[in-house]
């Protein structure tokens, strides 16, 4: 009973027309590259280079710090200049390896461990692990871990998350239009890891050309199909997408694998393909530089570690002074203090808005209009949850399924009283998650 959508959700201004017709442009980094050791969920990577070392493009500079972790690779050749804390897009400081680019781009030799035809599923997972591939849609969950659920034969769907529901972002869309074969190949590899799996390309119906293209490409594939899902935010949220494609519901304490699904984002699957077939580590991604403050919004193929400022300069800088700069899109992205932030494996966009709609807003009294309840994709009652947080009533918060919140921001977006609903709920979730760890 896959309905191609979910209950709730919102339709914010999409802003995709700014950059959707701009072809992907490769840009070479000029300044130093910064590699934070924590670009993924799980244990931070451990640096294996020292200050003064010469590194080559594609050389591992930090190894995985545990099972749920991922190695990090240099994306240019040059000298390790420093290993010191740097600010991330999230605002946190993180130990980072700084590499001075020598402009030579000397590469290590990439070759797959085995010819593709001889690879077992385990070999493929190892190749993905060795390449440091993580979920590039934002969460950064190590893909190799995702590919190794307890019961691989229970996985019946591998869903390529091509919905790109976040406003302004067009990086996945450009990838689909320009390199559809790469994405399809990545999906096929992922499907081949699981004995009983079928592949689904879930594309929002505001990208009819991408849907048509993939329908054409997959017409002879019996294990891959295209699913047009309804354009609505947050269609691309993992739980919502699984529901839209399969009708199965998972909650916050379940993994997609519990519903027989593996969900991977467009860039991730492309990286999987490169890792398995060519033995190339994860070194680049597509980043959209957009927003009404940017002179020429663009989609860039970026070497991970490149400074945002360089990308923005290539896009012609600011047309007007931005009021807010966001790493990511306006719904889920992080507002950043300044542009000296490196792109990471999970950096999908830089959105520069001329109007800061939020900072000046004063929350007013809740009028109980129930809009937050209507839009909540998790079927929560955000108003009650936020009240519970304001009263520090942890028990009520947990009883009303507060931990199920996916922090999509729909409730804050829609609230006519401008209450900071998502923010309140998010804060309490962090507190509760912290308590669970103890």
């Amino acid at each position, binding site marked *: 009973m896959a309905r191609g959508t979910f209950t709730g959700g919102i339709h914010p201004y999409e802003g995709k027309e700014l950059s959707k017709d701009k072809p992907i442009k490769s840009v070479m980094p000029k300044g130093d590259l910064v590699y934070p050791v924590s670009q993924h969920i799980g244990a931070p990577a451990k640096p294996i280079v020292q200050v003064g070392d010469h590194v080559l493009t594609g050389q591992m500079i930090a190894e995985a710090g545990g099972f749920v972790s991922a190695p990090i690779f240099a994306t240019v050749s040059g000298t390790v200049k420093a290993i010191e804390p740097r600010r991330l897009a999230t605002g946190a400081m993180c130990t980072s390896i700084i590499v001075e680019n020598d402009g030579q781009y000397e590469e290590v030799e990439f070759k797959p461990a085995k010819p593709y035809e001889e690879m077992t599923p385990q070999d493929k997972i190892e190749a993905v692990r060795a390449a440091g591939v993580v979920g590039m849609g934002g969460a950064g969950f190590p893909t190799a871990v995702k590919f190794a659920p307890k019961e691989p034969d229970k996985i019946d769907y591998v869903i390529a998350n091509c919905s790109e529901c976040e406003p302004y972002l067009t990086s996945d869309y450009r990838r689909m239009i320009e390199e559809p074969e790469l994405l399809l190949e990545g999906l096929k590899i992922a499907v081949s890891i699981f004995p009983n799996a079928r592949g689904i390309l879930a594309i929002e119906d505001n990208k009819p050309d991408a849907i048509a293209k993939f329908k054409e490409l997959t017409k002879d594939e019996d294990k891959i199909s295209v699913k047009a899902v309804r354009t609505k935010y947050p269609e691309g949220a993992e739980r919502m997408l699984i529901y839209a494609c399969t009708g199965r519901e998972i909650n916050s304490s379940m993994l997609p694998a519990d519903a027989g699904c593996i969900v991977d984002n467009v860039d991730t699957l492309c990286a999987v393909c490169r890792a398995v077939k060519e033995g190339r580590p994860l070194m680049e991604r597509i980043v959209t530089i957009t927003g009404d403050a940017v002179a020429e919004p663009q989609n860039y193929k970026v070497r991970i570690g490149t400074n945002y400022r360089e990308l923005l300069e290539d896009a012609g800088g600011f047309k007007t002074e931005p009021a807010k700069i966001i790493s990511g899109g306006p719904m889920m992205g992080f507002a950043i203090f300044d542009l000296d932030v490196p792109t990471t494996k999970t950096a999908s966009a830089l959105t520069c808005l001329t109007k800061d709609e939020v900072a000046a807003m004063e929350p007013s009294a809740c009028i109980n209009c129930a809009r937050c309840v209507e839009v909540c994709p998790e079927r929560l009652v955000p108003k009650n949850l936020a009240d519970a947080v304001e009263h520090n009533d942890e028990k009520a918060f947990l009883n009303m399924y507060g931990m199920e919140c996916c922090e999509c921001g729909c409730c804050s977006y829609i609230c*006519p009283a401008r209450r900071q609903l998502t923010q309140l709920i998010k804060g309490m979730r962090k507190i509760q998650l912290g308590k669970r760890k103890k």
Partner: protein
Amino acid sequence: MSDLRRVSSNPHVRSKTTTSNIMMWVVIALLPTTGFGIYNFGLNALIIVLLSVASAVLAEFLYEKALKKPITIGDFSAVVTGLLLGLNLPSTVPWWIPVLGSVFAIIMVKQIFGGLGQNFMNPALGGRCFLVISFPAIMTNFITNTYTGATPLQNLKNGVEPVVMDMIIGRTAGTIGETSMLCIVIGAMILFAVGVIDYVIPFTYIITFSLFVVLFGGYGFNFAYLSAHLAGGGLMLGAFFMATDYVTCPITPKGKVIYGVILGLLTGIFRIFGANAEGVSFAIVISNLLVPLIEKYTIPRAFGIKKTAKKEAKKA
């Protein structure tokens, strides 16, 4: 680090709907029936509506000023309260009735419980019920120059055949804003169209009430009797404009259905078995009081949570 930019937690965009433009839409949607009321009952009706709106806004302003609270008359909620109260008064009342009602509605029902969003019953109806209980004779005097008889519902109760067409258009005795079903429905359509109100509450209310009338009205499925009940009295105004008052209706999807059903049942009981012809105001006010209870028991099960999970969680 000199030019640090402003940051905030996501999301960074907001919808255009605000509290004040929601209230504006309600005012706009009430204009057709207000206009018809003034046309139907004359200048007196206009004065009463204006007095009631003005005193509601003034009461809110003065109360907040006196208590040194932020002034919130800009959100138009007091305008809506005053307007609804005015529309719920007969055109024959003396000038101090709307003033007293508005002041009671704003201060006793709304402000002392914490202002907008905190009132436990609809302020306009709270004000009206207060007036009906305190001044029953004044509040049920519907005799004007045009209409010398009883209201259609009073007639219905006494077994007089109503003229349904007049009731739909609104050419009957009654309170200023309740007589014209047509104008109220036009207003309701505006609210549906702009997404200010949801159809669940008014429709479950009207359907439940209709069923009740068919079952217990004593006329069976008599179309004229039923439509007279639907078009008469405050039902339409209540169902579309007052039962749907955000603050005093449940926010949970199931809760809305239960609330609508309770409203329908109570209205039916009051109208058919009660001493008065009318029942909508009291039905809504009583249902308002049940809302916290309804909400408590209708918190929806979150996405992905199985039916059994809650029981297990309780055991644990």
